[in-house]
């Protein structure tokens, strides 16, 4: 039997659906629900409904119920749009990159990352729709779309990303759905059977699945990068001071990955504690993700520092008005909080291995999320609040409607995520098993291939 076939045999055996395996903890959340789930769900649903109510108020009366005005025509909704889309980079990008890099520690976290992506994109798009003055004319974007507009690039890119991410989430989900199919009965059994697409775990099916997943992993990365690049182009393609910057594309992508990792860490920590997955989401995972977060902290700081230093040296009055507004003016509290939350605190926590624990990374991630939201805020609002022509006295603060919608969106996201964990295993069961049974051997073999063989051959041939 060829080596590949051997490997396939091992994998297949390992992955044949079986009862009473060691990974019961991963299936347990799907099969059993406690009162805590319902209680949390009720709370989140209440907040989400409150957000819906706030939106209905806005839909009825118009955007006047927000705090937006002239010249601050964009505010919290656009901030949220960029923020949510940014977080969506967590999943697919991390999952895809780690998969391509064959980083084995990814196995426990890919699913939770991919779910973040798929769900949060809806809220990103939702934020834009909420921001529209005439949501009833949404189809005009299709009917009369103009491709010179960066917003249309957004539409294409984000919808492609959503489609790709959904596929990329679904494909590795299939084997787990099959496991659940075989463990449930009645309505749920029928549901899982429909979604399992007749998965039986044969070697051929596995081969096909691996190929598809690999293709998606490769395809989804440029799409993901394009997503936040075109989001940045919404700002960069105007001529407004401190928007029209060449650095925005990479800056936003880096910021997106940054906030995405932070969101992922947070989500993982919550899942870990709620579903008692301490065996699967181990400190080492948080450690490695913490290192990635640290790298992104430094990268974020590099980009931000460049942006502000270059602007400062340019000394152009229009740009400096915005610059000063952020550094020392009305936006200084937001700006410096952002710096503390995105750089200072994470650096301190994550640079030291002793503090790069689960708790440490969670704290760092929370501050990163706050800081990144503030970063979007300090990008969107100050440039608008300092128009070139005098004659406006800008001041913008969101109203209860805007905050409620923000809270509602966050709550709804959490609620949907929670529901997902109840319907599908949040840690990929088959990948864990694959890791346990096949990957160890594979990795040993791979490492050995890096090193000199010591048997007199060079590159597999006799010297």
């Amino acid at each position: 039997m060829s080596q590949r076939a051997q490997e396939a045999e091992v994998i297949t055996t390992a992955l044949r659906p079986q009862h009473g395996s060691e990974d019961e903890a991963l299936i347990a959340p799907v099969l059993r629900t406690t009162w805590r789930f319902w209680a949390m769900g009720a709370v989140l649903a209440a907040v989400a409904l409150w957000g819906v109510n706030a939106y209905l108020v806005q839909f009825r009366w118009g955007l006047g119920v927000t705090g937006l005005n002239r010249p601050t025509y964009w505010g919290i909704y656009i901030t949220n749009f960029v923020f949510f889309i940014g977080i969506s980079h967590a999943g697919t990008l991390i999952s895809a990159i780690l998969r391509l890099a064959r980083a084995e520690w990814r196995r426990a976290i890919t699913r939770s990352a991919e779910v973040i992506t798929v769900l949060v994109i809806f809220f990103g798009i939702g934020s834009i729709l909420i921001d529209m003055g005439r949501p009833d004319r949404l189809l005009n974007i299709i009917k009369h779309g103009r491709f010179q507009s960066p917003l249309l690039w957004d539409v294409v890119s984000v919808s492609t990303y959503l489609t790709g991410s959904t596929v990329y989430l679904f494909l590795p989900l299939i084997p787990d759905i099959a496991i659940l199919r075989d463990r449930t009965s009645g309505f749920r059994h029928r549901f899982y059977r429909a979604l399992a697409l007749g998965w039986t775990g044969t070697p051929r099916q596995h081969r096909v699945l691996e190929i598809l997943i690999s293709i998606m992993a490769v395809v989804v990365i440029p799409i993901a990068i394009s997503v936040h690049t075109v989001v940045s182009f919404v700002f960069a393609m105007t001529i407004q001071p401190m928007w029209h910057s060449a650095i925005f594309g990479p800056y936003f992508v880096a910021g997106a990955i940054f906030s995405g990792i932070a969101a992922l860490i947070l989500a993982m920590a919550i899942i870990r504690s709620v579903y008692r997955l301490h065996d699967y989401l181990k400190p080492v995972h948080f450690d490695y993700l913490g290192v990635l977060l640290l790298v992104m902290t430094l990268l974020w700081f590099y980009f931000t520092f460049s942006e502000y230093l270059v602007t400062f040296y340019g000394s152009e009055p229009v740009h400096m008005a915005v610059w000063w507004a952020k550094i020392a003016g009305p936006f200084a509290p937001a700006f410096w909080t952002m710096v503390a939350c995105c750089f200072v605190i994470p650096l301190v926590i994550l640079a030291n291995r002793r503090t790069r624990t689960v708790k440490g990374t969670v704290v760092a991630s929370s501050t990163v999320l706050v800081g990144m939201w503030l970063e979007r805020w300090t990008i969107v609002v100050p440039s608008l609040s300092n128009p070139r022509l005098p004659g406006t006295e800008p001041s913008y603060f969101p109203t209860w409607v805007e905050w409620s919608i923000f809270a509602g969106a966050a709550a709804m996201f959490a609620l949907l995520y929670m529901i997902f964990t109840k319907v599908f295993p949040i840690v990929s069961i088959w990948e864990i098993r694959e890791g346990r049974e096949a990957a160890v051997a594979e990795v040993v073999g791979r490492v050995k291939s890096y090193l000199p063989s010591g048997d007199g051959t060079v590159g597999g041939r006799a010297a």
Partner: protein
Amino acid sequence: MTLRRRDFLKAMQTAAAAAAFSPLLTSCRGPDRPRSRVATAVPPPRGAPESWVVSTCGACPGGCGIRARLVAGRLVGIAGNPLHPVNRGGLCPLGISGAHAVYHPDRIRGPLRRSGGELRPTSWDEALSTLTARLRDLRQRGLSHTVALLDGTRGLSRDVAARFLGAYGSPNHLGGRPWNDVTATEAMRAMQGVETGAAYDLENARFILAFGSGWLEGAWSPVGAARAYGIARRGRKSGRVQVVQVEPRLSVSAAHADEWVPIQPGTDGVLALGLMHMVLREGLENRQFLDQWGFGFDWLRALVLRDYHPDAVSERTGVSVANIIRLARQFASTRPAVAVGDDRNGPGVQSVESGMAIHALNAVVGAVNSPGGVLTPPGVPLDPLPAFGSDERGARGRAAPPLGGGRADGPSALQAWLEGAGSYPVNLLVAYGSDPLAMLGGGERARVALRKVPFVVSFSAFLDDTARLADLVLPDHAWLERWQDDPTFTSRGFPVLGLRQPVLKPRHDTRHAAEVLAEVGRGVGGPVAEALPWRDFQEVMKLSARGIHRSGRGALFDVPEAEAWVETMERNGWRATNFGSFEEFWAGATARGGWWDPVYDFGERRRVLRTPSGKIDFGPLARSLDPRGTRKEPASAMARAPAAPSGYPLKLHLYPLLFAFGDDQGPLPLVQDLLGRELQESWSLWVEIGQSDARALGLEDGARVKVESEEGAVEARLKVYAGVQPGVAAMPVGPGGAPGQAWRRAMPGQAAALVGPRHGPTGSASAAGDAWVRIRRA
């Protein structure tokens, strides 16, 4: 406790249902939506027949010509009349918003009578009979002199009121408008003996020295002044005019001047005399003019040379000695140059002495009754209304001491009278085209004074401040709904008669105020009925317009090129009238907007100088300046430098917002919004101080502060403005705010509460110049 899925789903359903009926959905409307329930506006159908009606704007005394656009009977737009010589097609925001004045939601829809403490609708018959009964009763009891009428109208409407009071037996026909009536007019009355007011020939001036604020922002004729400015800047071959604005703050007018000279509030006249001092010292005065046309100048010369040395003037005004010398030289050596005084009523404007000093300065350089100077416009040659008889009661009433000495600043005089200066009570007050309470600032003190009058009648079309405390409201038509004559003059001194005709039928149960007054007069009976036999105001207009027709002078409005033709013909003694019979004249005048006479005869000495000496009389000014003179009135405010009361370090400078004083317009939203635009303020009251003062007080731009003087206090928003000099606090004054209206005017005249009313027969003690305030955080 286990919460089961079923319970959860049920709870969610209930919550969803509740959310759908959420009261928040219906009650949470945006804060900036008008409180009144609104119907979505439906424009008239496209293609509906359109017509244009020519009339004259009645929003202010400027007298611009308008064309009203009507579609399917609705007034949908107002544009300027290019044939009208005052504005030649241009307009100002007040006139442009005219349609809003017609369709205003706060218009009074019918006569109102106060019963049970509230104003309730009543019928015209009842209202008029009430008023007539009271008037007759007062006349019976020999108290006809206790009736006072504040008149904000001009032309024949004013004549009707004068006839009414004259025949009725009251000497109290008071001026009641905030425009154009006090300082320059009184100065010319004192020094030239004429009543017409000043026409500043700005189009032909090469140097304009403007004292006080607002000549470009409103003044005697907003559009007229603006047009003259535009021509003097860029519209003529003789070079661009130089404008110097002397003013305590950098107003819009000052911003458009070539130079702004900051000056301490209330010291315009002092500076004028200081300039005169330098002109005389350097021998730059027009000696020939003074010899020929001046009377009593030597006395004034001696006083000015003695008391108004540049050092003293500099100390009082804050203008540097170098600037005084330079300005004097510029003013005297650029010919023609003209000094323009402030021209409005109300708190914050110049005293009459200042007006006289400025007029005297003009005379010193020969800028009186000469091209580019101060002209005395001839009146429109209307026929006087026929004389009326009198009876004993009437004669006795007329002989009573008049309230306020017949001065134009009616509301101030009235307030002083009611507060104790008066020798008899006022039993009936008529506000006729006037809102005296607003002109007095709408504050508590003014209200208390007016409440002393047992019966107040208002003819206002809106529930303005006075109407709100009136006992009877007889709403007039909106100016677009009535016939009226609008006699005025252009800046070149040409008399103009604009005709105002209804462009649409009256929307509510309103009546022409003059017609109502005439009807009331007929109800009173006796000589009053004889004096006012007309039922239709158009009849009165035609009656008096026959005088124009008979004079054979002037022409109906025509294209600008026709002006030169008419002028040439008339100067050579021929007629250039473009009308034949009176019917032709009247038809043409209503179709084109009116009549004018584009000739100013600079040689009409007897018309222009009606003093006993037949010359410009410098005596009144000299008398008021000389503190050791024989006058019993308080010494001139200009002679002494008032000291700041302790604890009130900032000198208050009030400046009236001219557009806020539109006649009979109600609060117009478009106009309200544009007031203060240059400072990015609007709607609510603000106080301006300079940067250094703000820092010293520890206050920042936008802070809510309390402004206190010895007279009163107001709350305002602080505006830190570089255009205010240190030690000065500037505040705008507008008519009082009336709550509950569609657009609540939150720019109340409360600022006027910081100063007392002007009193004294010559309006000396211009309180604004002496008002001191302090500012602290609210």
